C-alpha cells in the first residue's frame, strides 16, 4: 500500500514549481472559450479555480461552485491526445536535387511533458493509445517520442460529470496505475488539502521535495468516501461485460437505421474521444515541385473519404458509419487490441450536436434484442 501524504494548496504549487525546475512543460486544465481545455499551466491560478461543468447529451456549460476547488469539474472537449498524438504531424519532407530526391524523416519531437490533472479514464485512454501506436509490430515514432518523458499527475475524481460512466467501464473514478503522482482533493469545513501518493520512483523523488506531511487516517477515510460517492453518482451507465457479443450479434439491428436518422456524421465524437486514433496522410509540394512533404492529420471514420475505394465509399450510409464507429469502440477493439476502445469519459455524448448517447444506443439494442428473444 503506497503511503498517502497530505499537501496544502501551497504545497501543490510547490509541485508545479518542482516539475518546472526539472525541465517539464506542464500541461493542465485551463479555461478557454467557456470550456475546460488542456494548455500550459504554471501556477494554480491558471486552473479553473472554483468552476464546475454541467454536462448532458449535446450540452456543456460552465458553472460557479461555492468553493475554490481546483478540480471540481469533469473532462472537457480536449483530451491528452492533443499533446501525445497531435492533430497534425509532418512525417517527412523531400527535396529534388538534380535528378535525385532526398527524403528526410521529420525528427520526432520529445518535449518533456508533465500532464497535470489526468483523470483515471484518461490514464486508461493513454494506455489504450500506447497499445495502438506502440504495441504492435511497428511503432509510431512521433507518438513514442512525445510519450517517452511524460510525468503524469493524476487526479481522482471528486465529482462525476453528467455524461460520465467510467464506473461501468472499470476505468475510474480512482486512478490505479499509469501515474507518477495521484491527487485527491478534499475541501472539508473550509479547509482545502490534497492527498497525494506516488506510483513510480520518480514520483517518490518529486514527492520527497514537497512540503507534504503524513495523511491522517480521517483524511484517508474521507478520500475513500469521496471516491465511493463519485462512483455512485455517475451520470450514465453501460452494461459493458457482454457488449462486444451483443453488438456483433446485431450488426443488422433496426436501431442502426434509427440512429442514422439522427447522426449528422459530423465526426465530433471521434475528435473528442480520447482513444480515437485514426489519421490520414496529405502530400504537398511547392509550386516548382522541388520541395515536397507529407503530413498526417486526425481523420474520422465519419467522413466519406475514409473508406473510399475507386468508385465510391465502402461505408456510404450514415447507418454504416455510425455502426462502424460504435462497434469499433465497444466490440472489434477487443479483437484488435485486447481492450475496449471506450473508457466511459462521456465526451462523445456531451459534444454530439444532436445528443446521441452511446450508452442509450447500447441499451436500445440490448432491450429490443431481449424482447426478440435473441
Amino acid at each position, binding site marked *: 500500500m503506497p503511503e498517502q501524504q497530505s499537501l496544502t494548496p501551497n504545497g501543490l504549487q510547490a509541485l508545479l514549481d518542482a516539475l518546472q525546475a526539472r525541465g517539464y512543460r506542464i500541461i493542465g486544465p485551463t479555461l478557454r472559450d467557456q470550456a475546460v481545455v488542456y494548455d500550459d499551466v504554471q501556477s494554480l491560478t491558471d486552473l479553473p479555480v472554483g468552476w464546475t461543468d454541467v454536462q448532458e447529451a449535446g450540452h456543456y456549460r460552465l458553472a460557479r461552485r461555492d468553493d475554490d476547488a481546483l478540480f471540481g469539474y469533469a473532462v472537457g472537449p480536449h483530451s491528452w491526445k492533443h499533446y501525445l498524438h497531435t492533430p497534425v504531424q509532418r*512525417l*517527412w519532407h*523531400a527535396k529534388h536535387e538534380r*535528378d*535525385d*530526391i*532526398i*527524403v528526410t*524523416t521529420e525528427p*520526432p519531437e520529445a518535449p518533456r511533458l508533465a500532464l497535470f490533472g489526468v483523470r483515471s479514464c484518461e490514464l486508461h485512454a493513454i494506455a489504450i493509445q500506447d497499445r*495502438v*501506436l*506502440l504495441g*504492435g*509490430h*511497428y*511503432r*509510431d*515514432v512521433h507518438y*513514442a517520442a512525445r*510519450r*517517452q*518523458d*511524460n*510525468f503524469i499527475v493524476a487526479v481522482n475524481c471528486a465529482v462525476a460529470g453528467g455524461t460520465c460512466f467510467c464506473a461501468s467501464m472499470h476505468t475510474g473514478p480512482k486512478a490505479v496505475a*499509469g*501515474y*507518477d503522482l495521484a491527487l485527491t482533493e478534499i475541501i472539508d469545513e473550509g479547509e482545502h488539502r490534497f492527498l497525494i501518493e506516488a506510483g513510480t520512483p520518480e514520483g517518490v523523488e518529486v514527492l520527497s521535495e514537497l512540503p507534504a506531511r503524513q495523511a491522517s487516517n480521517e483524511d484517508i477515510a474521507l478520500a475513500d468516501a469521496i471516491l465511493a460517492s463519485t462512483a455512485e453518482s455517475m451520470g450514465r451507465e453501460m452494461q459493458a461485460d457482454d457488449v462486444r457479443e451483443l453488438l456483433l450479434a446485431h*450488426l*443488422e439491428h433496426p436501431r442502426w437505421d434509427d440512429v442514422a436518422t439522427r447522426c449528422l456524421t459530423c465526426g465530433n465524437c471521434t475528435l473528442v474521444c480520447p482513444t480515437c*486514433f*485514426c*489519421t490520414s*496522410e496529405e*502530400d*504537398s509540394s511547392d509550386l516548382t*515541385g522541388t520541395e*515536397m512533404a*507529407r503530413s*498526417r492529420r486526425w*481523420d474520422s471514420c465519419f467522413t466519406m473519404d*475514409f*473508406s*473510399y*475505394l*475507386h468508385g465510391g465509399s*465502402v*461505408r*456510404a*450510409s450514415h*447507418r*454504416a458509419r455510425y*455502426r*462502424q464507429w460504435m*462497434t*469499433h469502440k465497444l*466490440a*472489434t477493439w477487443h*479483437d*484488435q487490441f485486447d481492450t475496449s476502445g471506450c473508457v466511459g469519459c462521456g465526451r462523445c455524448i456531451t459534444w454530439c450536436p444532436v445528443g446521441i448517447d452511446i450508452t442509450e444506443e447500447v441499451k436500445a439494442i440490448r432491450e429490443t434484442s431481449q424482447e426478440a428473444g435473441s
Partner: protein
Amino acid sequence: MAIQSDKLALAHDPMTPRVMRVLKRCHDGPQTVTLDIEPGDSAPFQPGQFNMLSVFGVGEVPISLSGAPTDHDRLRHTIRAVGPVSTALTRLSKGECLGLRGPFGNGWPMQQAEGHDVVLVAGGLGLAPLRPAIYQLLSERERYGRITLLHGTRSPADILFHREIMAWRRHRNIDIEVTVDHAPPDWRGHVGVVTRLISSVPFETGNTLAFVCGPEVMMRFAIAALKDAGLGDETIYLSMERNMKCAVGFCGHCQFGPVFVCRDGPVFRHDRLGGLLNLKEI
C-alpha cells in the same frame, strides 16, 4: 508515467519511404502499366504482399507485388490508372524516382497448398497479386497437384499478361480458362462472369485450396460457386481491398470488422472473416 524505453528502439520510421528508381516501364493493357523498380535493400517478399508506392508531391497508394519472388533484381508492380496517384505512377518513366515502403501484409498460403490442387480465381487486375503465387507454383510444380487459373475480364483487350498466359498454356502444366464479359464477334473463348467457370473445373474435393482476388462482388460470387463445388470455407483464401493510408496499423482506414487488412491481411481465409463479407458496408 513515462513509457518504457525498449518501446523506443526505433531503428527506422515505417512511414518514411525509400527513394527508388524505375528500371523499366511497359504497357500491360488499357490504362495499365507494369513498372520494374530497383529493389534497393528491400526485404524478400511473399506472393500476395504489397508495397506502398509514392509519387512525390502527389500521394501514396498500396500496390501488390506482381513479379517473381525469386527475382531479386527488380520489384515488379502492375498498376491500373484509376485516380490521381495511380495515374501518376503509370506515367513515371525509366530513371525517374518514386517512394517505396514495404513489403507489407501477409501472403497467399503457399505452404498449406503443398500437396493440394490449387484453383486461382482472378477478376480483372486481381491477377496481378496472384501472379507471384503462380510463378512459385510453377517453379515448384512437383509439390502441388492440379493447378487451375480462371481469369475474367471485361473484354479480350483487358486480359492481363495475355502473352504470358498463352505461354503458360502451351508450355506449363497449368489449366487456364479465360472469360470476358463483352466479346467481339471474333472471340472464340468463354463469355460471362468468371464465377461461372468454377462449376466446370474438376476438383478433388477435400484436397483443393482456392486463391481468389478481384472486385468484392466477384469474390462473393466466387465463394458461393466454390462452396457449391464442394470446397469448405477453410480452404478458400481471398485478398481484400480497403482504403489504406499507412499499411502499418496506425491510420485505421483499412478496417474490415475486427481485422486491419494491412496488418492481418490482405489475404484472409474465408472462415476467419466470420461471414462479414455477406454484410453490406462493413
